[in-house]
């Protein structure tokens, strides 16, 4: 520390100011960065790979509006957490009463159960590329997740998660190995191109739908509350959310570029999921690109499988007033531990069940996500607009308009997705599941 201080004095003032700013930011960084990255989970990576394989660089322009939508919605939650010091489920309970909370929590449980199944399916698929049977991989993954949560402290877990965020670099490397046309890719990001046909629009909808998942709002807000980030650190919290949104979208960019440069270019347009994309990469971009792609999928799935059950159990117990948290003993917080266990055991167990209707479960989780999202979004916008709750940091009129427009657009898009999921023959099903 002393040495550091001495070194600081040798630096010019502007550098010192920068250092101080960075230190302030690092104290707050985490929740936004982790949440946005965990957003690129198994389902997300599949959708992005498919989009790249099917449409090449053509859909890259959607990244900018997606970043904005992600930032706008997450920022509201960050602000709610920072100003009120309360979790999202707490706020819904206090401001809207018991019954709405109960409904949100029950739907949340079902939705997240579906999502957990999807994450373990991602683990199984990725390990298949490494020639490891799912009957070995999934139980080990489930036990690892369990131990991480039961044995780790919040700070250790956060560090592990931050490292997991770094592993997303795997996608950057495999994109480079794929030797894409960077100029064309960059152009495609800034110049939108449209096609007016059902499959294209559905792909676009799926991209946006997978980027904004309702559970992440709860997790993000809880993250800031638990880190005790106060209103004075709001600028840093906002920067964290912004950096998170951009880095999340950067990873999406590399995933799409990777499959676009290889699968799309080779005319290999229809792949079912991310694992198939990794498999198909081998002859085109080499063994390393393929393995890295699969490793990225494994990391993302494990990462989300660690966060989802814990955050879900936490949110439900908090909203309904049961004891929650890993620092309680089992007998003090039985409901918390039961929910957590059911989520992991059922989530991992379904994958191992021979002949389990996996596809139906994934469709169901997508539909449930779609039903849940508008409700949660509306609560978030209503809460963050309240002057009595938020004081000076309530949504301004301009921001309210942006928030409502974003939310309504999101709601319409997910309604389309639900329609496609329930009537797969009408629009050709949802890409990615």
């Amino acid at each position, binding site marked *: *520390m*002393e040495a550091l201080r001495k070194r600081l004095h040798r630096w010019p003032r502007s550098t010192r100011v920068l250092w101080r700013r960075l230190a302030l930011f690092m104290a707050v960084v985490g929740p936004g960065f982790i949440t946005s990255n965990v957003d690129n989970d198994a389902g997300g990576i599949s959708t992005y790979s498919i989009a790249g394989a099917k449409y090449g660089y053509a859909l890259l322009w959607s990244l900018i509006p997606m970043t904005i939508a992600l930032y706008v919605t997450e920022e509201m939650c960050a602000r709610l957490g920072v100003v*009120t*010091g*309360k979790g999202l489920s707490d706020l819904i*309970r*206090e401001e809207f*009463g*018991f*019954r709405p*909370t*109960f409904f949100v929590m029950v739907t949340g449980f079902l939705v997240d159960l579906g999502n957990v199944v999807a994450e373990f399916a991602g683990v199984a698929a990725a390990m298949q590329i490494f020639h490891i049977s799912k009957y070995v991989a999934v139980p080990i993954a489930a036990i690892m997740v369990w131990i991480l949560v039961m044995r780790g402290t919040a700070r250790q877990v956060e560090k592990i998660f931050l490292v997991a965020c770094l592993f997303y670099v795997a996608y950057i490397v495999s994109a480079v190995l794929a030797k894409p046309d960077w100029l064309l890719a960059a152009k495609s990001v800034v110049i939108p191109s449209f096609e007016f046909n059902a499959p294209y629009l559905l792909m676009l909808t799926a991209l946006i739908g997978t980027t904004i998942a309702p559970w992440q709002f709860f997790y993000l807000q809880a993250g800031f509350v638990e880190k*005790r980030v*106060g209103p*004075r650190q709001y600028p840093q919290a906002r920067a964290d959310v912004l950096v998170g949104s951009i880095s999340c979208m950067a990873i999406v960019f590399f995933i799409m570029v990777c499959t676009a440069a290889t699968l799309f270019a080779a005319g290999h347009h229809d792949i079912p999921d991310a694992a198939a994309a990794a498999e198909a990469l081998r002859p085109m971009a080499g063994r390393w690109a393929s393995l890295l792609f699969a490793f990225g999928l494994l990391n993302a799935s494990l990462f989300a499988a660690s966060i989802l059950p814990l955050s879900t159990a936490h949110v439900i117990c908090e909203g*309904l*007033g049961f004891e929650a948290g890993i620092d309680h003993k089992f007998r003090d917080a039985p409901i918390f531990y039961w929910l957590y266990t059911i989520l992991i055991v059922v989530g991992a167990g379904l994958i191992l069940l021979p002949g389990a209707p996996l596809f139906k479960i994934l469709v169901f989780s997508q539909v449930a996500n779609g039903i849940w999202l508008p409700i949660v979004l509306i609560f978030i916008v209503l809460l963050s607009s309240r002057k009595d709750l938020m004081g000076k940091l309530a949504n301004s009129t301009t921001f309210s308009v942006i928030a409502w427009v974003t939310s309504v657009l999101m709601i319409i898009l997910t309604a389309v997705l639900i329609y496609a999921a329930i009537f797969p023959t009408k629009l050709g099903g949802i890409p990615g599941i």
Partner: protein
Amino acid sequence: MLHATELLGAATYDVHGNFVGRVRELFIEPADQSNRVARYLLGRGKYQPLVARYDQLAFVVPGSIKLNVGEKALEEYHANEGWLAVQKDLLDQQIIDTAGRKVVRVNDLDLAEHHVNDCVELRVSQADVGVTGAVGRLLQGLASPALIRRIQDRLPSRMIRWEFVNLIEPDPLRRIKLRVSHQKLAHLHPADLADILEALSSEERQSIIDSLDEQSAAETLAELDSRLRQQIVEKLDPEKAADIIEEMAPDQAADLLAGLSPETSKELLEEMPHHEASDVRALMKFDQNTAGGMMNTQFMLVGETATREEVIDWIRANESDLEQLDAVFLTDLDAKFTGIVPTGRLLLASAGQTMISLKSDPLLHLPPDANEKEVFELFDKYNLRVLGVVDESGVPIGAITVDDVVTRLAAKV
């Protein structure tokens, strides 16, 4: 016994049997009586809502109220800050259970009926924070009250008696009007109170620390995690913050101030009395990870030739923290550190024994720049409860106690 939720929405009839309206809210007037439902707000659709007073009720059953006056006798509704609204201020909100020492959320309230001169008064008897209340809230209006009660009877209940309920009201003006005091909280163990504070939002935390006396606030702050502690102190009025820090042990005060911004810590030190401030300043000079950074400057120091009686009289005369009094330190005539006498030995010593004959072997001490690892090793090897820190001329300048060590080690686990 009635539940608050069974009354919300209850149809209300006047003495002539005419329908007046539905109950929208129940108000308690804590300034008058802490547990009585003093007012019933009756919503009447597009008409002006009316208010029934506690002595205007003739008869109450779940879902229905009969008044003992005509509609004309009821008052008009005017919002009153001094009224505690059951639905708005209590249901779904967090309260502190002072008996169970934790923060809980209210699902429902139990109201006991008291018959007073021909009218029925309802008094809050307990808060339902368990599954029974949750089920009641969920089914309210969907199933008949009788059915809900039958289901509730089969479920385990978790109730908190009203006298153990401590409300959390961040607005200080409203807190006075509602007669919310945190007196009960000051009686909790500081560690329990710290746990409670950690479960609350920052504004609520601030309001509780604000309302505690300096001594309790200091003890509670000492138990909080360092980040939270800094946040609270930074938001306090500097004068109050200085008063609280003054009450803390110098080593804790130094730790706290070291974590604040240099400007804030300088400001707070200037607010403190000169003597305490210089103690703390001296401690702040030491690196956090050395014996100097761990030690406390408040310890019992006596001459080695003193007798048991003299020492005990001296301890009695000096106000000291008896809970933490593990040992007394000895010095010779040159003020050099010569040993430690554990309080246990002092207790059993015979009258007239001098301190020098009671001291523990071997003579252990460390310089202030010794690494914290050396401290841990000494405590471990000799099973110490307290260790002296001496400067280069051999003068004792501080004491490290076993709880300082435990705190450091716990942070590393």
